């Protein structure tokens, strides 16, 4: 499945480097800073998982990389380097050249990402054409080819279908085919299997893994499912309330999580291969996510919280090679996980 102990420098240099990115949102007349100095990176050829629950800011981060921020959002600071180029400094035209060729995204709801008025074969063909390699006829032929590569049976017939005639899983495969046509260096997959059945989910991830092996694309996989992370990703980034909490190779994250939030997540995870024990303390933890805290935003729920956690943002510290944590008190809780 996955190599648990990969060398910390990853499989190549850094391809994507997000540095100290802050994004705010206009909410009811007030500007709320959702992403707070977020920094993470994806190496060439690596599969990185961005894990977080709702409100963690993981989707907002990916939208920032793609340049798809909604109007109510504003970038307050930081930079996003893709292969050495700061995306935030690009003009919209330059950015649109980057999209597709260097970075592409597949979304949660695949059907709504497709044009409902165009047959899927034509949509993939257009993606092929945009890469400039072929003329119209050649592009369509290549499109059908790609559709069968992503495992769509009867590709020639299915290519003539409209998105609403295809199932969710099929639509997602069409998106992967479009992505293959573009051959981006970085693929961002934002919860690509939410709403799909588990057996279909397995097929889609198998497809993504195969694509990664064949093309060497780097993948940033955004998910809340720790099972998917364990099986598919090599490195993991944990986010909470718009802040990065911990980063580690997947094996280290599961074996010895340093951050109290990661420990909380891992202790609440359910498994199908064994019966999980119910949590000991039945005190219901507060659920609400607050973006107004100056220090660490996990403070309201943190079992290892110190007074300084509210006021001061912790520095990034190294636990071991490749494993970093952003917490004042991680030593106090490290090693005491399950």
């Amino acid at each position, binding site marked *: 499945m996955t190599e648990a102990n990969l060398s910390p420098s990853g499989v190549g240099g850094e391809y994507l480097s997000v540095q100290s990115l802050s994004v705010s949102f206009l909410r009811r007349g007030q500007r709320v800073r959702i992403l707070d100095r977020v920094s993470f990176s994806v190496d060439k050829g690596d599969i990185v998982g961005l894990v977080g629950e709702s409100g963690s800011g993981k989707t907002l981060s990916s939208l920032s990389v793609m340049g798809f921020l909604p109007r109510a959002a504003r970038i307050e600071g930081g930079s996003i380097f893709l292969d050495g180029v700061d995306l935030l400094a690009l003009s919209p035209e330059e950015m649109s050249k980057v999209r597709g060729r260097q970075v592409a995204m597949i979304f949660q709801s695949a059907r709504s990402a497709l044009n409902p008025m165009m047959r899927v074969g034509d949509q993939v063909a257009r993606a092929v054409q945009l890469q400039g390699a072929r003329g119209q006829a050649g592009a369509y032929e290549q499109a059908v080819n790609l559709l069968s590569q992503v495992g769509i049976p009867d590709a020639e017939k299915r290519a003539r279908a409209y998105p609403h005639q295809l199932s969710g899983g099929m639509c997602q495969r069409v998106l992967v085919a479009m992505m293959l046509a573009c051959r981006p260096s970085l693929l961002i997959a934002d919860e690509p299997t939410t709403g799909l059945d588990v057996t279909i989910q397995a097929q889609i991830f198998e497809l993504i893994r195969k694509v990664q092996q064949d093309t060497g694309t780097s993948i940033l996989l955004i998910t809340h499912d720790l099972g998917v992370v364990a099986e598919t990703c090599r490195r993991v980034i944990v986010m909470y309330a718009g802040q990065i909490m911990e980063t580690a190779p997947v094996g280290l994250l599961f074996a010895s999580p340093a951050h109290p939030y990661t420990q909380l997540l891992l202790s609440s995870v359910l498994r199908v291969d064994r019966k999980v024990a119910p949590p000991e303390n039945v005190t219901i933890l507060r659920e609400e996510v607050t973006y107004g805290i*100056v220090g660490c935003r996990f403070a309201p729920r943190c079992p290892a919280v110190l007074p300084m956690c*509210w006021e001061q943002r912790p520095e990034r510290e190294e636990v071991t090679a490749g494993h970093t944590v952003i917490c004042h008190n991680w030593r106090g809780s490290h090693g005491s996980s399950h």
Partner: protein
Amino acid sequence: MVSATKAYDNENTPGSGPYRGQLWLTLRSHPAMIIGLALFVFVMLMMVVGPLMVAYGPLKTNPEQVLQPPSPQHWLGTDNFGRDILSRIVYGTRLDLPIAFSVVAIALGIGVLLGMWTGYYGGMVDDTVMRVTDVMLAFPAFILALAMTAILGNSVPNVIIAIAIAYIPYFVRLTRGAVLSARELDYAEAARCVGNPGWRVMYLHLLPNCLTPALVQATLCLGWAILDVAGLAFLGLGIRPPTPEWGVMVSEGARDIISGQWWPSFFPGMMIVVAAFAFNLIGDSLRDITSPTEATE
């Protein structure tokens, strides 16, 4: 220390209604609403205290002061019987407004109940009601009211009923639409699951959530009702002279416009516009407010 619950409790304190805290914020961003409300208050004041403040009775004729232009004794002039126009307009509010409210109340009441019923149960009843409303909506409301009055007979109560009947299809449609989507929601099913009979699910659980489009329409209908009542009166249906009613006044003053006496028609006409406009502004603003922000989060 930063209070962690602040960003999460919203502006509402426990015990207050669901949306009260946001009222002021909403008003501030909809100036049309404020203007509409101001005009509405103005008209209501006119209705309530106006008659106590005017100098002349609405029916008091004065043959020497016939067709006088606006002057310090008669602010809006006099009509062809020497009656003070301002007094008549003020007294007119006591007719037009209650009639408009009655019309809308009847149409709203019947329309909403009917719309909820057919929307919830569907089936043949629903199909029949829909076809009937289709036919009714094919005609402009005024024409329909005109026809109804002709059938029912020319009297004020009949005019009220006629106009109300013309408006009912709008309310049926709107409410039915709201119910069709609301009844699929889990809380409707939960209401049945808990043991509510169908009528309770419809009227206690679903109705409060389906009322909004109908209420918005109701405010708009108030404006239309004033126009329709005045229009029918202008044609001689419903209210008749010498009763002071804005439409009647416009009708009576119409023939004098040619000879240059514009004020007997103009001011009542303006009043109709002001009142209808007020309701339209309120209704439009309500529609804007309730559409996007109904789901507050």
